[in-house]
């Protein structure tokens, strides 16, 4: 029996009251409003005037494919489409599994859980959705429409993983990982060392699937897990040596496709390196600590562009003779090593922010130092630094435009191809720049929004 309580007094203001309370609360704010609002309106007017009247978007319209995939071989374009489809499916499966996990946890803890609605997805990703709509507006054929519709349909199919029972969560994550690897390899091909990437995913899967809640950990479990990982690795190797899909290596990628991949790879690779450096810098072993400190301070004292040049021209002398690295691999290496130093400092800040009582509680329970680190310190420290970390990754994403200076044709760099065309040699420079800027902004803003959301979500139960 709940007793009906009166609703809380409404705090909303009507239009006129809002204007008076927020814009003209006193004389000085009123003057500020009178000065600033016309300036704001004028800026909006000038922007609109450029975008809708003065600008000639033909350069973007005719070169849309160039912006998206650059000099990627046109006869291999189907690979990119397949990649988009596989990633859309992976995204759907991942999102479905993630929200089902969140729902399970919230329900068990007796917290309110609000299911994802179409509205909330639109609000979260509106910048990306707007960018896709701009692309579709410029599209001259029906293909981009089909790709977008197909991707949305596949994402919705993937989202149905939300309905799977709790015991299928692990399979959801594994399916997502497999789809991501497949999406990567449908473009890059399955030759060379590609089997290693797949073996890692399958190995992690085999490791997790041999986990049982009824068996106590011990040598038997370790042996079983090791056998599972070794066998799955061998199977992957054999499959990859029999079935080969030729592909287009990343030294031939360009445009937005390359920008996204370079950023994603540098982010994924720099995180573990940064984590290791942060731990090494706090290590009790002096040699390790000095090495980490020297590395971090050296890298942080050098501009990224100089590291990129060093990667292109000097790295060759430091590698063993005969090693060949494409300039894109070198650029990814330089960006990874650069970002790792910043990630290390961010993580170190998080480690220091943790109350010492947490570590003492772990020690008092008899946990070993590595266990305290892995199970108590890092999970909390990393949560605390999500905003700073995402900020670092956003600047890494934007800094990938520096690759255009070392003659790599990423999203910004393809402009040089467009303005080499006779029609656009002197015109439309502003238009292409604005288009590229909007593209970067759409992704960076979405990342920032997601980090804010994640921050709120992970505070669950922190009171």
């Amino acid at each position: 029996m709940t007793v009906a309580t009166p609703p809380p007094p409404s705090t909303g203001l009507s239009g006129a009251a809002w204007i008076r309370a927020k814009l003209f609360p006193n004389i000085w704010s009123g003057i500020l409003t009178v000065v600033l609002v016309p300036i704001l309106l004028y800026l909006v007017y000038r922007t609109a005037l450029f975008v809708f009247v003065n600008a000639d978007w033909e350069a973007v319209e005719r070169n849309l494919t160039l912006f998206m995939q650059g000099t990627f071989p046109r006869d291999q374009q189907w690979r990119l489409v397949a990649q988009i489809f596989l990633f859309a499916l992976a995204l759907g499966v991942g999102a479905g599994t993630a929200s089902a996990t969140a729902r399970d946890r919230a329900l068990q803890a007796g917290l309110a859980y609000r299911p994802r609605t179409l509205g909330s997805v639109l609000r979260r990703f509106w910048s990306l959705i707007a960018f896709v709509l701009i692309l579709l507006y410029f599209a001259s054929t029906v293909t981009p429409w089909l790709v977008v519709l197909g991707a949305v349909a596949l994402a919705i199919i993937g989202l149905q993983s939300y309905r799977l029972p709790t015991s299928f969560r692990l399979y959801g994550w594994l399916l997502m990982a497999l789809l991501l690897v497949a999406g990567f390899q449908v473009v890059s091909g399955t030759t060379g060392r590609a089997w290693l990437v797949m073996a890692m995913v399958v190995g992690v899967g085999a490791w997790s699937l041999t986990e049982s809640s009824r068996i106590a950990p011990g040598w038997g479990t370790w042996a079983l897990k090791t056998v599972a990982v070794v066998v799955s690795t061998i199977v992957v190797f054999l499959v990859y040596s029999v079935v080969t899909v030729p592909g287009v290596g990343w030294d031939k990628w360009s445009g937005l496709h390359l920008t996204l991949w370079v950023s994603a790879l540098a982010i994924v690779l720099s995180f573990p390196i940064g984590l290791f450096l942060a731990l090494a810098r706090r290590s009790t072993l002096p040699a390790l600590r000095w090495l980490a400190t020297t590395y971090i301070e050296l890298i942080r004292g050098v501009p990224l562009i100089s590291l990129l040049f060093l990667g292109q021209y000097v790295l060759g002398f430091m590698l063993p003779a005969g090693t060949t690295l494409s300039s894109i691999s070198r650029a990814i290496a330089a960006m990874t090593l650069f970002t790792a130093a910043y990630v290390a400092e961010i993580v170190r800040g998080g480690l220091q922010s943790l109350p010492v009582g947490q570590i003492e509680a772990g020690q008092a329970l008899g946990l070993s130092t590595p266990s305290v680190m892995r199970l108590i310190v890092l999970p909390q420290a990393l949560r605390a630094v999500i905003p700073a970390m995402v900020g670092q990754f956003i600047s890494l994403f934007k800094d990938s435009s520096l690759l255009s200076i070392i003659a790599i044709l990423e999203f910004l760099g393809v402009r040089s191809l467009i303005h080499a065309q006779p029609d656009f040699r002197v015109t439309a420079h502003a238009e292409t720049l604005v288009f590229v800027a909007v593209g970067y902004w759409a992704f960076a803003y979405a990342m920032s929004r997601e980090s804010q959301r994640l921050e709120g979500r992970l505070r669950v139960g922190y009171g």
Partner: protein
Amino acid sequence: MSSSESMRGVFADATRAEGDVIIEVEGVDKYFGDFQALKDINMAVGRREVVVVIGPSGSGKSTLIRCINRLESHDRGRIVVDDIELSGDIRNIQEIRRETGMVFQSFNLFPHLTVLDNVTLAPRQVRNMAKDEAEQLAMQQLTRVKIPEQARKYPGQLSGGQQQRVAIARALAMQPKVMLFDEPTSALDPEMIKEVLDVMIELAQGGMTMIVVTHEMGFARAVANRVVFMAEGEIVEVGTPEHFFTDPQETRTKLFLSQIL
């Protein structure tokens, strides 16, 4: 409670417990820089004995029990817990920490884990228990502290008293031989102190060896076999609760008791 009655007799007025000793502290000094926090501490605790340590703040009470599970290292003397002498060796330290549970003033629950995961963490990681077995054990301990229904919640959703009881369950899940309490009720609102003390009293009556640093004199009167009074890093006076509260010998003890009672 006949065994505890008889022990009271055995340990009255003694800094050295006779017979079945589980904790022995001999001539322990501890420095923080130039400041001497513990001065020549000698005491012994028998199995199933409840020792309450009281004293003004800064008297070294917390430092003493933090030395017993080596959250602090002592600079001189010997500490022996269940026949293991504390040394700097990490394996030796972990062995002792497995046998001693600790409850902190500020609870120190792990906020990123559910109550159940807080309690199962150490049994699974340190005792290598299977998940199901550890969860069964955890539910037993949570029932013992009377909050099994909160198992799936996060610490931040609980009241201070509930959090401290989870912390006790977390320590008990390692099935320790000794429980150390470092001012377990000092951070609690008055109305929550009783629920925590009740759990501790039950624990004492169940025969757990306990060293409790506290300001709760009622608790000391109810369950302590011995009360140890510390001031300025020294043990000033030791005695049974009756003796201690009614007929203290030392002036410093009398002064302290007159201030708090």
